[in-house]
């Protein structure tokens, strides 16, 4: 397993995809959280425009949680895609053949991909969260608002946000294992996370039973894990407890990986 992990690690870092996506994530997260920090504090439309000049729609600690968790709320698609492509690109470029020649035990291959995907996901989590929190805190500071960076709970939120993004990469590996077609998996992952889940969460919130279902969607689970999000702090949705969110998100990743092991990874490689 050690050798398989080192090989998977090298596969991930010897192509350009990972740092291109990481740079994109940093830029996107910093931009979003800067906008958000300004928006939710300065009444830029989100704080109930018209009611008052400088009214805070959210209490200060909720503001920072909404801002600092931008990465886990909107940026999870980056580790998700990296994880998915770590499997799908092997099938796209037929490197699955040398991969399985080097390690014919296919469960070991899938396991190594899950672990290495999670490790790279943690890098995305730490860097993406740092970008979001850094840009957000700078804007809050510039506006003279509290940053809450001296609170332990803030750092816990940040750490859990990074961990949730690592689990998103694992979920990506799972998606890739179930759907190893590179184009298909990217389209499905983007469509689900950017369109299907947000719509589902919105629609389900109207029904009495739907809210309980909505909490179990992967995006909601990821937000729950970090202890809150822009959505929950705005009162739009309810979330699970952080540990429950972690369990649900991990279950998506590992469950999909197991399904992939007994579908994609059981087939003949021709």
């Amino acid at each position, binding site marked *: 397993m*050690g*050798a*398989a992990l*080192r*090989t998977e690690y*090298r*596969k991930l870092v*010897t*192509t*350009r*995809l990972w740092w291109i996506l990481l740079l994109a994530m940093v830029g996107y997260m910093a931009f979003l959280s800067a906008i958000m920090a300004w928006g939710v504090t300065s009444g830029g439309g989100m704080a109930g425009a018209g009611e008052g000049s400088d009214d805070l729609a959210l209490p200060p600690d909720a503001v920072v949680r909404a801002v600092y968790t931008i990465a886990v709320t909107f940026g999870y698609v980056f580790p998700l895609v990296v994880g998915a492509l770590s499997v799908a*690109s092997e099938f796209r*470029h*037929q*490197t699955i*053949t*040398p991969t*399985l*020649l*080097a*390690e*014919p*035990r296919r469960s070991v291959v899938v396991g190594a991909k899950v672990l290495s995907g999670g490790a790279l996901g943690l890098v995305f989590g730490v860097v993406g969260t740092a970008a979001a929190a850094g840009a957000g805190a700078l804007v809050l500071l510039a506006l003279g608002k509290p940053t809450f960076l001296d609170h332990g709970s803030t750092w816990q939120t940040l750490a859990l946000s990074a961990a949730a993004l690592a689990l998103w990469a694992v979920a990506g590996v799972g998606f890739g294992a179930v759907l190893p077609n590179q184009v298909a998996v990217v389209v499905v992952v983007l469509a689900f996370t950017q369109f299907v889940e947000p719509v589902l969460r919105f629609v389900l919130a109207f029904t009495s039973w739907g809210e309980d279902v909505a909490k179990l969607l992967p995006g909601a689970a990821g937000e729950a894990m970090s202890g809150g999000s822009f959505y929950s702090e705005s009162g739009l949705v309810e979330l699970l407890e952080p540990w429950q969110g972690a369990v649900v998100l991990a279950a998506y990743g590992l469950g999909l990986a197991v399904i992939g092991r007994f579908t994609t990874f059981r087939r*003949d*490689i*021709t």
Partner: protein
Amino acid sequence: MATTTPLPSHDRVLAVSHLSKSFGPVRAVDDLTFEVQPGRVTGFLGPNGAGKTTTLRMLLGLVRPTSGTATIGGRPYHRLTRPLRTVGAALEASSFHPGRTALDHLRTYAPQVGVPDARAGEVLELVGLGGAADRRVGGFSLGMRQRLALATTLLGDPPVLLLDEPANGLDPEGIRWLRVFLRTLAAEGRTVLVSSHVLSEVEQTVDDVVIIARGRLVHASPLADLVRLARPQVHVASPDAAGLATLVARAGWVRADGGGSAAHEVDLVDVDAAAVGAAAFAAGLELHELSTRNPGLEGLFLDMVATPTAPTHPEVAA
């Protein structure tokens, strides 16, 4: 070359036994049995679609046989510990991520082979790609990819090599290089199996041949035995087509094309030129041409894989 892993030679024997594989209704490999011996280069021959690649993939545990076994040193591939130390296989010249450099490609697998990273540079030099180590594989020619695929198989210095159409895309100089390289590897005691759909491509390289067609074994023997099977033909030309046909019929000669109609020129098998000349002289038939022609191995090979016949020499398969 580095030293060969000192495996007992029976651990290097490839054995395929009653191996079959169906893809839906298509019988890709059908009750195939043969062995490949160490210290020799074996040509695994057949037309495209004969089942060569499927057989190799079953030997390598990538494709699950419908029935039968395919083993390396008596063990299926997935039971080998550190398989890349035992078997080096190059199945196609396209199993590379185009964005990875040649050196990174090799270094990626080095931990699983259990060799230091420096070995990656060594094998690149060995196949003549030392100058392209830091270039992305996406820009490689087919010939360079073939060399990189070969370098990958050599990472673990394995005693068994399986190469699928390794000469594809090589220029004549590259083919000559490959020939010497494979001979050297076999001389070191390794088992070398090389597939090809053109016998002439490997004719000067191989010691043994295994020929399959439509998934079935057609012939397996040392190359020398195959050469003996390639019967010479006698080419006869006469201005008197009817007389020639009569002579051929009376003598009971067999025409290479199997025909019986009158023609000005015929090719005869299983007879030598002297006998034909004597008979024509005795019959008073005017001849304009009388010569021995060797159709060569390629002709024999094409005949073997074209007509659905039983294996010619199944007993030499072992």
